[in-house]
């Protein structure tokens, strides 16, 4: 008996001890969970991908616009068409001669303002007026926000917009409670009644129809635990929910839940949180959701894959109406409200999967970022990266290149390749010459096939596109009127004879410097290069900050060395900006998730040549388009003044065209990556692409030409001799520009042009006083 009593006591003691150990263990485990929860909740709760933005778009009365590109832009900015007058942010109505928008709130670094309604009236392709509809004021300038062009996702590929509980409308709070946990504000993380109800319903239907998890348990599972269904995981979930409820207020838990919850899929990216879901499904901020929309979002929590309106509108509507019924049962809404919401169709905003827009440009920007921030920071800290790209120009450039290459392959069947990796390629760079803003960059015809950026990484021979730098060097000694030799001569280079190949483009003996550049005459260019000295040409090219090595060889004058397209475009900007070379700017501002500026980059410029020289070069390069190798531009519809230069390399391996106006510079390159011949010159392969591009972006074409800077003078010369024209006797006197102090002093010496009266006397008089 004693033995039995003592045994019993021992068992009880052991059980007590065991219970004590278990309780202590549970408490310790809860303590560990509390630390874990605190650590996660006190720090950064979620990884927010950094976003890359385009530049904002400025619209003003009198501006020419490409309406179809503008509408595409508005769609990318998530403006949605409505049939009535736009009444809320993000709505637009497009009519034949006008466009009405209710602007989104503008949120840019150091620039925020609320959206407002505007009416943009058009006269043909021109903006006639921009009027604020709320106060009737005419606006001189309207700024459309930047486009999101890329997100730096981490491995989890989640997208969310954080919202505070204060911003979440009551309807959505009630809908979520009705759909998931109506007793959330009554229980302590674990709801026995819900579990019993779930068991009853599941037994009655013979299948799992309902879960008994509270919102806190769901949060614990989604935020901290793995989704496997095991008893151990369920116990951890329960303990975690209890700990969470002990440590945090209901409001805090509910806010985290609303931001955490998975609500759908946009391609490979998951949509998390009600803030992101409101935009993804309805294109509006969460606070603007209607009752029906709030119920739709709440109904998705159970199974976004099944009930997504993008998957099945019918199933979504059934589930939404169920939530609305539950809301009514719980007294959150009246029957009338429910009936109204139930009658509404599920109207979504539509979406395009996250894709990298302007991919080569984004790569170019991204390469500058690792120096500033690590990939982990970029994929988690929610930084905003503002760039210079104009997505209308980018779209026009991508389309022009695509169309141009297809057209070439159609015209020259020999250019077609079945292997996508070996197809005919191209590159485009569009810049604003005065500031160096890169407006567009296309590094190849298909980013998915090859990510090699031909605009910034390729090293190709420029051919004749380098000639302007030879002629620029020549301007110190010669003038655009100087007659150059176009005979085939043998030159002595480093003690060895060298003879340029080919024939002159001009049949006569001798060609004026302007014409030689316009016609891209190789023999005359070599003549000029040998006269000015190869060393000096090397010095000129180096001054333009080309990074590729070059040697003082005669073939240098014909572009037989490699350049990087972006560097060539940058160098040409100097001619278009009165001798000032800009730094190519792509990354403007970097801000943290609160909009604080972390990094800012500005346009910087460097003087390379005098404004006078730059003007004379532009004037000469204008002749290329008027009467030279690019004169076909006129037939393609170029009616505004512009300058440019074609380039073709040996065996037609590369075709170039670099063209510019005072407002815009664009470079086009076409060729094969492996250097095969494209059988076409720059004027045939690259120029039409340039024209197609620039005609698509009338907002960047002012029709202006450069005003003459100090240091440039004009004089009438004889087109044949290049000397000063003798009035009345020189048959083709033309006006030529000269650098001041470098004007030709000789009157025309062609015997037939010499006057026998006045002009002869003039010359005799001059000779007399010269002695």
């Amino acid at each position, binding site marked *: 008996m004693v033995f039995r009593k003592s045994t019993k006591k021992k068992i009880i003691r052991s059980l007590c001890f065991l219970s004590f150990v278990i309780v202590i263990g549970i408490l310790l485990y809860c303590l560990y969970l509390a630390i874990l929860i605190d650590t996660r909740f006190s720090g950064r709760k979620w990884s927010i991908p950094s976003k890359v933005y385009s530049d904002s778009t400025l619209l003003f009365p009198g501006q020419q616009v490409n309406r179809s590109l503008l509408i595409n832009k508005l769609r990318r900015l998530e403006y949605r068409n409505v049939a009535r007058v736009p009444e809320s942010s993000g709505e637009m109505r497009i009519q034949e001669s006008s466009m009405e928008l209710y602007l989104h709130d503008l949120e840019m670094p150091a620039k925020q303002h609320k959206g407002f309604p505007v009416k943009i009236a058009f006269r043909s392709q021109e903006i006639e007026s921009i009027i604020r509809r709320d106060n009737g004021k005419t606006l001189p300038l309207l700024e459309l926000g930047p486009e999101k062009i890329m997100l730096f996702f981490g491995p989890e590929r989640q997208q969310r917009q954080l919202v505070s509980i204060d911003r979440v409308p009551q309807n959505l709070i009630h809908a979520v409670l009705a759909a998931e946990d109506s007793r959330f504000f009554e229980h302590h993380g674990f709801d026995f009644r819900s579990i019993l109800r779930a068991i009853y319903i599941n037994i009655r239907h013979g299948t799992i129809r309902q879960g008994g998890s509270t919102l806190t348990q769901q949060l614990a599972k989604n935020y901290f635990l793995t989704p496997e269904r095991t008893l151990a995981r369920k116990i951890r979930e329960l303990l975690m929910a209890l700990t969470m409820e002990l440590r945090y207020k209901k409001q805090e838990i509910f806010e985290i839940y609303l931001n955490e919850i998975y609500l759908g899929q946009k391609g490979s990216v998951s949509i998390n949180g009600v803030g992101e879901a409101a935009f993804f499904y309805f294109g509006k901020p969460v606070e603007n959701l209607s009752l029906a929309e709030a119920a739709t979002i709440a109904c998705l929590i159970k199974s976004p894959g099944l009930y997504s309106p993008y998957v099945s509108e019918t199933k979504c509507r059934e589930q939404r109406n169920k939530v609305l019924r539950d809301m009514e049962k719980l007294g959150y809404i009246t029957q009338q409200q429910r009936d109204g919401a139930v009658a509404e169709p599920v109207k979504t905003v539509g979406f395009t999967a996250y894709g990298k827009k302007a991919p080569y440009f984004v790569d170019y920007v991204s390469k500058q970022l690792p120096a500033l921030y690590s990939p982990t920071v970029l994929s988690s800290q929610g930084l905003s990266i503002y760039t210079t790209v104009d997505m209308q120009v980018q779209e026009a450039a991508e389309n022009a290149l695509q169309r141009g290459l297809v057209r070439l392959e159609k015209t020259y069947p020999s250019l077609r390749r079945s292997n996508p990796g070996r197809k005919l390629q191209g590159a485009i760079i569009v810049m*604003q010459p*005065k*500031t160096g803003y890169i407006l567009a960059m296309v590094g190849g015809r298909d980013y998915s096939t090859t990510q090699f950026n031909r605009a910034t990484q390729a090293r190709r021979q420029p051919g004749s596109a380098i000639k302007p730098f030879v002629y620029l060097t020549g301007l110190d000694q010669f003038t655009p009127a100087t007659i150059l030799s176009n005979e085939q001569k043998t030159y002595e280079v480093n003690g060895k004879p060298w003879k340029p190949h080919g024939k002159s483009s001009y049949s006569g003996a001798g060609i004026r410097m302007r014409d030689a550049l316009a016609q891209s005459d190789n023999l005359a260019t070599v003549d000029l290069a040998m006269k000015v000295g190869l060393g000096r040409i090397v010095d000129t090219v180096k001054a333009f900050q080309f990074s590729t090595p070059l040697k003082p060889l005669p073939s240098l004058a014909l572009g037989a060395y490699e350049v990087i397209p972006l560097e060539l475009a940058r160098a040409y900007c100097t001619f278009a900006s009165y001798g000032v070379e800009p730094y190519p700017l792509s990354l*403007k501002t970097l801000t943290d998730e609160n909009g604080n500026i972390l990094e800012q980059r500005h346009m910087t410029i460097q003087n390379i040549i005098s404004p006078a020289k730059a003007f004379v070069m532009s004037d000469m390069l204008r002749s290329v388009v008027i009467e030279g190798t690019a004169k076909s531009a006129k037939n393609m519809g170029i009616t505004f003044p512009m300058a440019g230069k074609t380039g073709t390399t040996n065996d037609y391996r590369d075709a170039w065209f670099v063209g510019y106006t005072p407002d815009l510079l664009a470079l086009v390159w076409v060729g094969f990556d492996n250097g095969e011949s494209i059988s076409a010159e720059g004027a045939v392969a690259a120029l039409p692409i340039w024209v197609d591009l620039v005609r698509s972006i009338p907002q960047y074409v002012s029709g202006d030409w450069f*005003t003459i800077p100090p240091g440039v003078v004009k004089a009438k010369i004889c087109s044949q001799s290049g000397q000063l024209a003798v009035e009345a006797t020189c048959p083709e006197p033309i006006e030529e520009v000269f650098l001041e102090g470098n004007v030709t002093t000789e009157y025309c010496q062609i015997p037939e042009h010499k006057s026998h009266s006045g002009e002869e006397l003039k010359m005799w008089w001059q000779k007399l006083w010269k002695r």
Partner: protein
Amino acid sequence: MNGKKRQTLVLYCICLIVFGCATVAPAPSKHPPRATSDTKIEKKELREGKPRPREVASLHLTEQGQMLLESGKVDEAIGVLGRAVNIYPSNGKNYYYLAEAWLKKGNAAQAREWNRLASMYLAGDSEWSPRVYEQHRRINVHSR
């Protein structure tokens, strides 16, 4: 006949022609015809005509840039003025304020570049030329 004697003889003949016939022969210039710059003419045309839409929009940004500059927001001013230049590159005031902004940032080299452009674009402007010149002087002082 040496050169000097020949010149004297010719001058004598000319005097005879000039005073004898009382006609003035057009004296050929010692230098080739000197062209006049179109710059002033074109600028005048721009100023007298109705301002172009680009110019108006650019000026609007110029004002914004100026205000930002005055309120000490130099970086933001540079951004706005850059947009103004892109819209209408011939608006010389933008270059002036950009020079001013770089001067405030303590970068005399950039200030000098923009001032040079300002001096070119505002050359014919009697109101702005002295300001540009004065700015140039300040830049020089700063770089010393």
